[in-house]
């Protein structure tokens, strides 16, 4: 066991944090460190929380942290925020809503920017989750905005997925990507004291009833959470949400589904890793040499088609053993 591995497994925040960052930045030394850690991962319960912007996910995440801490579980949180497509920068502000846990040694909160459409978000998120797993976090909450395909892909790293909806946000069920409805394991209707909450609940119940159920399958429950400023009721409702999530986890274990999901997760990680070690260096080389641009010009002018070009490149690079 290397020093870094030992430190991270012991829960050292500084080393863990540095490794997450190095992985995100694709520093060459980082991947080998993750390889060493990998055997110590796979023991955490990973919960994905997604929903449209403004749905109040961070507030719910904050409440869930409280619930899990009550059960003496250690918690890791990954909060994903979009990078500005104009400047490449980002303001990552989800922490603001989780302030009271800032000094709790048992909670590790980490923000992640999406860093643009070139991909790699899923892998960066997966890497961060693995580091947190190696730290020994019992529960890992991954919070992401469910509107981009990349952001949705992150959710496949999770064992249980919570979709947060808010009344009065228009035809949100329709506007949100269809994929979300299929992957939700628990629905949370947040700010349920607002007008339209009842309709939303009815609509959602109807949609769920309409979808075919296989015997023994999990029926996604709907939990309503009201005004944050009615502390007693809010605490009770978020405790209910935590319970439903735990119920799902228990279901996953009992039905063998967890194993199935972890396999799915492994497939995604292998695929991401392949992309990362085959496609990325390839694209980088082509970009650096200017060849990609030349090819793009040819395709634009219809002097070539993208399919033939890709096949030629594949033959060239794969044959030569290029990594």
């Amino acid at each position: 066991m290397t020093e870094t591995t030992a430190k991270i497994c012991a829960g050292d925040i500084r080393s863990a944090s540095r490794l997450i960052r190095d992985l995100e930045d694709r520093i060459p030394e980082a991947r080998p460190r993750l390889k060493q850690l990998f055997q110590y991962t796979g023991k955490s319960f990973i919960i994905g929380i997604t929903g449209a912007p403004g749905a109040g996910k961070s507030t719910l995440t904050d409440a869930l942290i409280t619930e899990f801490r009550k059960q003496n579980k250690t918690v890791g949180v990954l909060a994903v925020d979009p990078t500005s497509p104009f400047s490449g920068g980002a303001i990552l502000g989800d922490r603001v809503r989780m302030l009271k846990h800032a000094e709790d040694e048992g909670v590790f909160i980490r923000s992640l920017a999406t860093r643009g459409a070139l991909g790699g978000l899923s892998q960066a998120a997966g890497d961060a989750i693995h580091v947190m797993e190696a730290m020994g976090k019992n529960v890992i909450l991954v919070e992401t905005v469910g509107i981009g395909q990349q952001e949705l892909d992150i959710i496949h790293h999770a064992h249980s997925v919570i979709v947060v909806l808010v009344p009065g946000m228009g035809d949100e069920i329709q506007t949100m990507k269809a994929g979300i409805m299929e992957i939700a394991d628990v629905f949370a209707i947040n700010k349920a004291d607002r007008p339209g909450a009842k309709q939303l609940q009815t609509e959602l119940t109807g949609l769920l009833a309409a979808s075919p159920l296989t015997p023994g399958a999990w029926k996604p429950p709907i939990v309503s959470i009201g005004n944050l400023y009615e502390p007693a009721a809010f605490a009770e409702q978020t405790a209910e949400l935590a319970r439903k999530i735990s119920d799902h986890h228990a279901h996953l274990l009992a039905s063998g589904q967890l194993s199935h999901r972890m396999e799915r997760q492994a497939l995604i990680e292998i695929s991401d890793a392949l992309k990362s070690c085959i496609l990325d260096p390839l694209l980088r080389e082509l970009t650096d040499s200017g060849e990609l641009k030349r090819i793009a010009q040819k395709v634009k002018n219809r002097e070539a088609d993208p399919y033939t070009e890709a096949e030629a490149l594949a033959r060239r690079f794969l044959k030569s053993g290029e990594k």
Partner: protein
Amino acid sequence: MYFSDETQKKSRRLTEKWQDEVQETLKSNPDRKDRFSTVSDLDIKRLYTPEDLKDVDFARNIGAPGEFPYLRGNQVTGYRGRHWTFRMFSGMGSARDTNARWHMLLREGQTGLSTAFDFPTLMGYDSDSPKALGEVGKCGVAIDTLEDFLELIDGIPLDQVTTSMTINPPATILWAMYCAAADIKGVPLAKIGGTIQNDMLKEFIAQKTFMCPPEPSIKLISDTVEFGAKYVPRWNTISISGYHIREAGATAIQELAFTLRDGIEYVEDVIRRKKMDVDDFAPRLSFFFNSHIDFFEEVCKLRAARRIWAKIMRDRFGAKNPRSLWMRFHTQTAGCSLTAQQPYNNIIRTTVEALAAVMGGTQSLHTNSLDEVFCLPSEHAVEVALRTQQILAEETGVVNTIDPLAGSYFVESLTNEIEEKTWEYIEKIDAMGGMIAAIEKGFPQMEIADAAYKFQRQIENKEKIMVGVNKYVTEAQHAVPLMEIDEKMGEEQIKRVQDVRRKRDNHAVKQSLTDIRTACKSGANVMPCCIEAVKNLATQQEICDVYREVYGEYRDPGLY
């Protein structure tokens, strides 16, 4: 119609001729820049003429002082009857230090008191709270108990001087201390006068000294309005504020619109919650505006404020008492317009801003000191700031006549434009379901953040100029003697509050806090219990902790 058809026609002809000559001139002498706008980025035309006022109805839109819509002022005799109150916001270190500064200011001709508290007090923490680390006495006076408060007002005749207190979440408590102090000094509550800022909506929007969530915060405010209407009739229980909204980066119109809409929210709550008639309390509502560096924009904003509020009171709330329709306001010159570079220039800025406030008809005025970009004002700096007001009042002649800028084509036109755009915002917020709903959606906060960022960008690219900062910059340093608050003061204050806790009747304190808790839970008016509690020397944090416990704490949504 404001001008006769004849005049309009003549004006149109002359304007057209002038336009042609302008075009000619521009060919060889272009304007200095493409666009001329106010500091809030409102476009200003090269010339205003009678045509700009063609839809104005003199009696309905302009009128006379003391008559609806009060555009030209609430009082029929204006400043000839009485100057605005020279009310310098001040507070520093200990109650004793502040008391000394207060006496100095009164000696130098200030006519009203205004209290600046330190951050722990503003946020409802005692001086020995871990959260108060490094903050005690630094930006205002530290008040933990009634003992401190009595020292603060030592030698001040409470039946002759009015006192304003800039305090928000703990407003009930500081006001309770004032009332208790009056009682101890033998001054009946019916005789004391002053203001508590007590405006929580603007805290959620801009200033961010918050404690409890919006709903219960407004309940506490309505408690003070009710208590004041019954027992302290000369007290202004809310100072509905735009100053801070402007300082946070809002435009003049946003400042005005959000302030007035906050006012509407408070009035609605008092009527609904306390079942009071609007005329029973509206005369004691007061406002607080910023006076920024763009002279005419500010004058017009303040005039528009009066007219809009009068309409709101009469038409939306059906107020009958003329005093309910009066908008009475205090003004402070804009802190955010002052520069750290070449600080003596700030005297000029404050002077122009003060003049705008006076031309806008303010009832009360605070002028910033030149060194407030660095720290609390030194004695010399605050003296200059006070003299600024006195020179305006005594030497410049602007007070000789009421609302002297009325009738100006520019001023009346800009006043109308500001009013129109303000109504748009008010209607927008109405459509969102009111101010609390708008705050939950983050609407005013984001409007302000966008405006602040836009202005900063305009400064960066020199579209807007700040002398000494992005133009006429010098390397030379202009040293300004700065005031320091001794760290020892904080330590002494901590000892004081701990002493008080030791020697008071802790049993009585516990009982009072329980009474407050009961009042909070039952929805009863908290003021009587507060007064009792402060008399028993409960600390202001102890009472605030009860509020926090019963009502919960507000969570900053952290919008950027």
